[in-house]
């Protein structure tokens, strides 16, 4: 991070409860997560002077969160653009705010509910369709198109690389294996490959178990300068490097870019590795976005843990990414099992792993982690490490 200004560290993480049912007031979710993050860091909430929320239209605003917590003033803040790399956008902007000196304690938050976060509903608007969607909506794409889009990618990948649906299933099974040991997780029962393959078809060949599990919840991550972090109570989790990428034609519903299967994950990964002295061989734990199983597989390959199209061989029936594997992956259960709180939870889990606080699911001696977020034209990635890594 020296190329960017001050070195930055994660010093606190906080969560609300994650729930599938009910309609909790997001003000309580956000307040709970932010208070917990500040308490974890050992600073008063009022010391927070930067705040960033990756906010969907109907989500709670930074103004609301600040007001509900009685934070007297913010030096820098943003309800970040929804075209950024999902919830990690909050963290990436918070890091830049601390690195630049714009603030000292920057909070990244993602607070989402099932009502504000849903994207798969059936559209009913029959007005002529403008913009890029005029090339999508007339064919049944729907308002977001995310489900048909991932169905298309799944079938194309299987045809292009001669792989099978079981490859996708191994990602779904892995999430439950880890979530079993995560009290926050909403889906904690293990599933079998038969369970996966017989799951409800959403958009053939996409299965419901390929998709994340929407919940209500909030995650907060607190950053400060590495120098300040050394005086706080937790082991500083240092931001080693980060990258964004869009790829070409980012306006196009993730469909008309350069790389149909891997999208901008490839360019994002290249940019990340160009900014660090770490290599894939140095990474102890991976927290890779799993809004869809296809996304996780793509990130593994884009980051270079294996070659493009080689995930099946590399993952070794799931052993590589499971407990005791050479690259423990998505150790919280991720969006597929912990519940979809939209990206930031992968960074929170990475920080707890590097601090050694994950209990039964702790990866022994974890000192480095890679975190990725989102897909398509909205990719983001980060490397974090301990001081002695």
């Amino acid at each position, binding site marked *: 991070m020296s190329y960017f200004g001050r070195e930055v560290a994660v010093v606190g993480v906080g969560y609300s409860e994650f729930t599938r049912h009910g309609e909790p007031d997001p003000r309580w979710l956000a307040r709970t997560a932010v208070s917990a993050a500040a308490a974890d860091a050992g600073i008063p909430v009022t010391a927070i002077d930067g705040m960033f929320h990756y906010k969907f239209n109907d989500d709670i605003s930074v103004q609301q969160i600040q007001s509900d917590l009685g934070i007297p003033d913010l030096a820098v803040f943003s309800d970040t653009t929804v075209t950024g790399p999902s919830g990690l956008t909050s963290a990436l902007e918070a890091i830049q705010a601390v690195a630049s000196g714009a603030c000292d304690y920057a909070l990244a938050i993602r607070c989402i509910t099932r009502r504000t976060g849903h994207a*798969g509903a*059936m*559209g*009913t*608007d*029959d*007005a*002529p*369709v*403008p*913009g*890029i969607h*005029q*090339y*999508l*909506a*007339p*064919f*049944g*794409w*729907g*308002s977001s*198109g995310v*489900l*048909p889009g991932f*169905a*298309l*990618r799944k*079938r*194309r990948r299987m*045809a292009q690389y001669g792989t099978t649906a079981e490859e996708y299933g191994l990602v779904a099974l892995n999430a439950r294996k880890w979530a079993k040991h995560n009290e926050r997780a909403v889906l904690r029962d293990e599933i079998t490959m038969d369970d996966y393959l017989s799951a409800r*078809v*959403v*958009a*053939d*060949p*996409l299965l419901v178990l390929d998709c994340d599990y929407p919940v209500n919840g909030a995650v907060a991550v607190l950053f400060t300068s590495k120098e300040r972090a050394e005086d706080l109570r937790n082991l500083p989790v240092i931001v080693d490097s980060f990258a964004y990428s869009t790829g*070409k*034609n980012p306006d*196009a519903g993730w*469909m*008309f870019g350069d790389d*149909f299967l891997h999208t901008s994950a490839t360019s994002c990964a290249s940019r990340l590795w160009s900014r660090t002295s770490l290599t894939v061989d140095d990474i102890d734990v991976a927290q890779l976005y799993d809004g869809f199983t296809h996304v996780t597989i793509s990130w593994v390959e884009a980051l270079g843990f294996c070659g493009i199209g080689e995930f099946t061989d590399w993952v070794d029936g799931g052993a590589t990414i499971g407990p005791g594997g050479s690259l423990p992956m998505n150790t919280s259960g991720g969006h597929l099992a912990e519940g979809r709180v939209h990206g930031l939870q992968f960074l929170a889990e990475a920080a707890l792993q590097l601090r050694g606080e994950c209990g039964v699911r702790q990866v022994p001696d974890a000192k480095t982690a890679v975190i990725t977020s989102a897909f398509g034209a909205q990719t983001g990635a980060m490397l974090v490490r301990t001081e002695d890594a």
Partner: protein
Amino acid sequence: MTISAQIDDERDDAMSVLHKPVPFPDSVSAPFWEACAQHRLVVQRCDDCTRFTYPPRLQCTHCGSDAVDFTEVSGRATLHSFAILRQAFHIGFLTSLPLVLATVIIDEDPDAILVTNVVGTALEDLRIGMPLEVEYEDREGGTVPLFRASRTGVAA
């Protein structure tokens, strides 16, 4: 009238007026949609690098040249991928299920991918790589290009 019968009636009324979405042409896309209305498929071709650009853009997506002109293409394409939708993501397709949502590559340029529907083809006959040809669906308010299995069967 029972509540459920009333809901059924309201749904039938709604479905009789809600139809498949049509495009809203703009300053860049108008020639594409006007050609569709004449049952011709035109794609922007760059006079400088000869590559094709889809969807329509202000400039060549490959080299950035302004010299892009809509050029009639053969209408032949290859099936790149497809999803079989048994639930509708827009209410206008409720009576068109199962719907084959597809990506197809036009014969003229391997990087020119269209999102479309494959119609008139048995689901069990769909194969990635199969040759397709364009046909048109005239809707109230616009004509859209769809694809079906090539009648000549000539591989793309």
